[in-house]
């Protein structure tokens, strides 16, 4: 068995993006970031504020709900922070870290969640970007995730740019890419799953990236492992990851 299952790798590395005292937001259709926030609350000692799209503030449920908008994310909350409230918080720059998903992602951390094919006559109509177009340029730090790591999901050129902005990190089941939005730079490979080489990742990535600084992703800590096992007792997270074409024994 490999050290990391796909979903675990995504969740833990999304959790590791959180910095002390940040206000962090996970939105609709975002089970993995929700899991990351809950994990971080349990596994890390520093304080941060976790806002969920369900309206709860700093709610840490015992178990994962199946929906990231689930009222389970209200249980025990001392406040309801409405949709208007967290969007305004984001657009005035006070939501420090926002998780956003996408169907396609390019080297600048821009996303396509709108359509495959021509927008007006799509081959595949995608869900849409949610608040991404207003949040990505206004919040200081955006963390992206994509569960399918392939040349068709991580692309050099997006078919449609749903949102662009302050992306700092991209997590897939194999790799953690980082970039500095202030420099408008491309992603570089920051860390990779120990059982996958940078060359293998490059072969499966549609955009070119610098791997000079790449290191193996640090092993899951005991507290991360314990938190993950506790909140995902029913392995719901695995439903969130598609069958990536197998690399090594993963």
């Amino acid at each position: 068995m490999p050290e990391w299952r796909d979903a675990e790798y995504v969740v833990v590395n999304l959790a590791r993006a959180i910095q002390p005292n940040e206000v962090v937001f996970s939105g609709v259709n975002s089970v993995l970031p929700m899991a990351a926030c809950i994990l971080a609350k349990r596994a890390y000692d520093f304080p941060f504020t976790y806002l969920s799209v369900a309206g709860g503030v700093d709610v840490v449920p015992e178990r994962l709900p199946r929906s990231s908008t689930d009222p389970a994310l209200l249980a025990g909350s001392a406040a309801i922070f409405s949709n208007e409230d967290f969007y305004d918080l984001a657009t005035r720059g006070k939501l420090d870290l926002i998780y956003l998903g996408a169907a396609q992602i390019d080297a600048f951390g821009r996303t396509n969640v709108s359509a495959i094919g021509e927008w007006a006559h799509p081959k595949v109509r995608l869900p849409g970007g949610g608040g991404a177009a207003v949040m990505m340029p206004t919040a200081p730090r955006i963390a992206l995730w994509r569960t399918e790591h392939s040349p068709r999901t991580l692309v050099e050129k997006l078919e449609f740019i749903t949102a662009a902005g302050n992306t700092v990190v991209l997590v897939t089941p194999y790799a953690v890419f980082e970039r500095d939005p202030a420099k408008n730079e491309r992603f570089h490979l920051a860390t990779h799953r120990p059982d996958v080489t940078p060359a293998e990742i490059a072969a499966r990535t549609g955009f070119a990236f610098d791997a000079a600084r790449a290191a193996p992703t640090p092993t899951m800590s005991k507290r991360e492992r314990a938190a993950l096992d506790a909140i995902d007792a029913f392995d719901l997270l695995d439903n969130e990851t598609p069958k990536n074409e197998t690399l090594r024994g993963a």
Partner: protein
Amino acid sequence: MTEKIVSLAELARSIPDGASIGFGGSFLHRGPFALVRELARRGARDLEVIKASPGYDIDLLARAHAVSRAKTGIVAIEGGFGLAPAYRRAIEDGDLKLEEHSCMTIAAGLRAAAAGVPFAPVAGVFGSDLLELNKWKTVVDPYGTGKETVVVPAIAPDVAVIHANEVDARGNARVYGSPHWDHPLTRAAKRVLVTAERLVSTEHLAQQPELTLVPGFMVEALAIVPRGAWPGSLHPDYEVDYQAVAAYLEPGDEALARHLAGAPEAQAFVRA
């Protein structure tokens, strides 16, 4: 006072074909789903759906050929079920004309309508192809910062429909948990309709008037619909009925018919 309490069927009939409707709630949570089903049952046509994050609702209406236009931010069944298949197909087949938004751009449009102004500024958006796609305009800050800001046009739905936890005979509607976008929605729409889980006394609501999301004078009509948010959740009363959502997602007209017939409001004792 005019009697505001009507049947669910009457409420659905009061929404004409061609109307633009803003639905309350978000994804599988506190949506006025019984009313959505009733629109399908009455064979509604050519509706426009306005909602930042619809899913089951717009999918069901697409499946019933009731919706021809939509303003949405993100659309999915969610809860592990992924994309909304009938909605997706309707767009891919050209049967549904989408105006793609970014959640807050819908809210900004609702806020503009609520405040009686023709447009509202909204932060961000630059760098997104949505700007050009929707031909949104920008305004340079007239106060000298030089900052350019996107403005979106007002969005005033013909009708807003929300599902509340409690309502009194006057239409005062109380909601527990997140209001989602129901506040700006009910202020922006030309008409406000409410379905609610329970009829309560005005005195009950008066004990905590702060919890009333929509005051009765703004509400045109209401229907009492127990389990009206099924198969979605209604905090704190019930959770998502995942089995029912899965059954809904089985393909074919028969599965839809079974779903509509099996809904709580379709049971004889409720429709009495």
